[in-house]
């Protein structure tokens, strides 16, 4: 029983026991697998360790954001997996609470709360990349008031596991760039939805392509007003940049600690060790700055503000620092770096490092490329002219 009055104490006790149970089923090196993340999601839901900041009349605990932050930090320190439905909790739920109708909240929040409905995010499209304003998936209003959806989404994380998708869709064919977009909640089991999993270079399948072919979307599954999609998507992105970035920073700190141990244990000549330790120190310095930045962002979030430009800087710095940590760890493996991620059974530690190195190639691409983050900082903070083509003028 997790009491609201002693929430963090109870949660800490529970975490220790629950993770022992989870680890009996899934090794720590398998924390990223969908089955492990699904099991963990279920355990959190069954113990009421979700929806912490939601209002009580929506099944939440109405805890302050600071407690949510502390809980996420605790989970990350215990090396808990990321729950499978974290996209729904991180992005959709706060967005629904802010923009949803009473009917929409009643329909969708319980499925997220209970872990029965997994969500995916239908933003990216072929050729749009990080430029979400060039979305081409379109929906036309029918005579019965419903929408007819046609288009093609890609890089949809767990699209092949999701029951629902929140998608950015062009509802005004005359709308240019970010105008004329709407935020739609699409049933992945509806006729005309086709999902094709994508295998990524780690050999795993976490993404999918999603095709919409004459999919009927009821009028009450548009969130906010028609044409308001861009504003809602941007607000949703702000939630993601805040609280839910924290576990990644804690993970980075743990990976750095592993790197420090690995370097200490590595057999390297004294002259080379000096160079490697210097390199390590520069990464340690970066990680400290990442921590200072995430703390600042979290203070802003806890105070009810949005992280804004700090979020872009944090994402940029974190992703590139993580790549450095993983590359360093790979180098310290020596010859064992010839192994692939599939060698997890015979060489779990080495295979896990190789997997994380390969995975880390995506960090500077997903959730806004480093190029885009730099543009944001250049334009908004330094006031430099926009790096844009003619269509956005």
């Amino acid at each position, binding site marked *: 029983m997790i009491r609201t009055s002693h929430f963090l104490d109870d949660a800490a006790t529970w975490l220790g026991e629950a993770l022992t149970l989870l680890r009996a089923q899934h090794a720590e090196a398998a924390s990223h697998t969908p089955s492990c993340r699904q099991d963990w999601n279920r355990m959190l839901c069954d113990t009421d360790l979700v929806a912490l900041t939601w209002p009580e009349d929506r099944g939440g605990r109405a805890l302050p954001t600071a407690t949510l932050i502390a809980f996420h930090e605790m989970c990350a320190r215990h090396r808990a997996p990321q729950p499978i439905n974290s996209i729904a909790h991180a992005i959709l739920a706060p967005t629904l609470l802010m923009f949803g109708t009473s009917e929409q909240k009643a329909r969708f929040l319980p499925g997220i709360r209970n872990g029965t409905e997994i969500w995916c995010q239908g933003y*990216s499209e072929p*050729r749009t*990349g*990080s*430029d979400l304003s*060039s979305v081409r998936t379109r929906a036309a209003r029918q005579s019965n008031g419903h929408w007819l959806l046609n288009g093609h989404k*890609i*890089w949809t994380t767990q699209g092949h596991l999701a029951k629902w998708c929140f998608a950015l869709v062009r509802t005004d064919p005359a709308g240019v760039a970010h105008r004329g977009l709407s935020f739609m909640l699409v049933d992945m089991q509806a006729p005309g939805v086709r999902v094709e999993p*994508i*295998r*990524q*270079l780690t*050999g795993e399948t976490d993404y999918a392509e999603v095709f919409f072919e004459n999919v009927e979307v009821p009028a009450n599954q548009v969130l906010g007003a028609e044409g308001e999609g861009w504003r809602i998507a941007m607000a949703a992105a702000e939630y993601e940049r805040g609280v839910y970035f924290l576990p990644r920073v804690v993970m980075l700190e743990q990976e750095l600690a592993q790197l420090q141990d690995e370097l200490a244990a590595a057999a390297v000549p004294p002259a080379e060790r000096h160079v490697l330790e210097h390199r390590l120190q520069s990464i340690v310095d970066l990680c400290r700055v990442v921590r200072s930045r995430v703390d600042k962002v979290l203070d802003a979030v806890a105070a009810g503000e949005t992280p804004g430009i700090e979020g872009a800087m944090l994402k940029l710095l974190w992703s590139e620092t993580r790549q450095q940590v993983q590359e360093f760890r*790979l180098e310290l493996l*020596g*010859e*064992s*770096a*010839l*192994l*692939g*991620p*599939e*060698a997890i059974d*015979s*060489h779990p530690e080495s*295979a896990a490092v*190789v997997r994380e190195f*390969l995975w880390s*190639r*995506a960090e*500077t*691409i*997903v959730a806004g*490329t*480093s*190029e885009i983050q*730099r*543009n944001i900082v250049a334009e908004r903070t330094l006031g430099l002219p926009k*790096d*844009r*083509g*003619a*269509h*956005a003028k």
Partner: protein
Amino acid sequence: MTTLLLSTFGRLVGERHPIAQARKALPCDAPAQQALWSELADGGWLDAGCRDFQQENGAHTLLLGEITGRSLMTLPYASTAFLLMPLLEADARLLADGLVSPLRDFPASVRCSSVQQDDGWIEHFGEAAQYLHLLPVEDGAWRLERHAPSTVAVLPGMDPTIGLGRLGQVAVTAGTLTSQVVLPVLQRHFAFELAHLVGAAGASLDMAIAYAKEREQFGRPIGQFQAVKHALVDAWMGLDNARYALRSLLSATADGTLAPDLAGTAHRLAVSAGRRACKLAIQVHGGIGFAWEHDAHLYLKRVYHLAITTQRSLGLLQAAA
């Protein structure tokens, strides 16, 4: 003549061993691999590391290596043509004693390392290949050990285009060679492997450059953005720097000079530029570059694989100096 030579080799490898072939990770006994091996042998390409070929065309070793790298060759061409063939040429007893099987029929995978580098990983090409370990022993002597294919344990490797094996403790048979014979050969083989690395990285970067010209974001080709354009230039120049270093190493090798210092420079430049180019290629391609179906990861994995195996050879060259 030399242009014809290179275009002939380039066409043979490019047509018979496109990247789609590399993806299949076929063992040596697959009919397509056997057919290509026969053509390489019939064309005299297995002699490319030997004296006559090198005297006439040694300057083109770099380009031959780049061609095999661009195609992500999944046959043990480098260790056969640039290591064992010249060793057999220098010491015919290796063949006569049966330590090495005829290379025309049995492509050879060789691990070059010292006992200190004792992990025993070797490239694995199936039961039809022969597996050897070349290592320094004492007082200028080197041992060439032969291992039975059945004793090589197979493991999942990072590079999905070639198998990864682990040599057992016990060799079937062994012979001895002198440093005078081994070291110049080892140095040329090392340079060829680095050329292969540069070729793989170069092919990856070429894909990214082509993509940057056609792929549009914000209404114009992404190559128009300096963030992309300049990064591609830096990566390209890095690879070109490596080529200069490799040419210096190869010309020293042609003179019979052992140059561990030049070998170190070539290794550092080629490995760092190669890794950077392959990582950039994935970044420039964005999501599509992270997909298994795209070739970008195959190049990345080959480059990272070779960075390790060439490190062993570099260690041997430097220790012998």
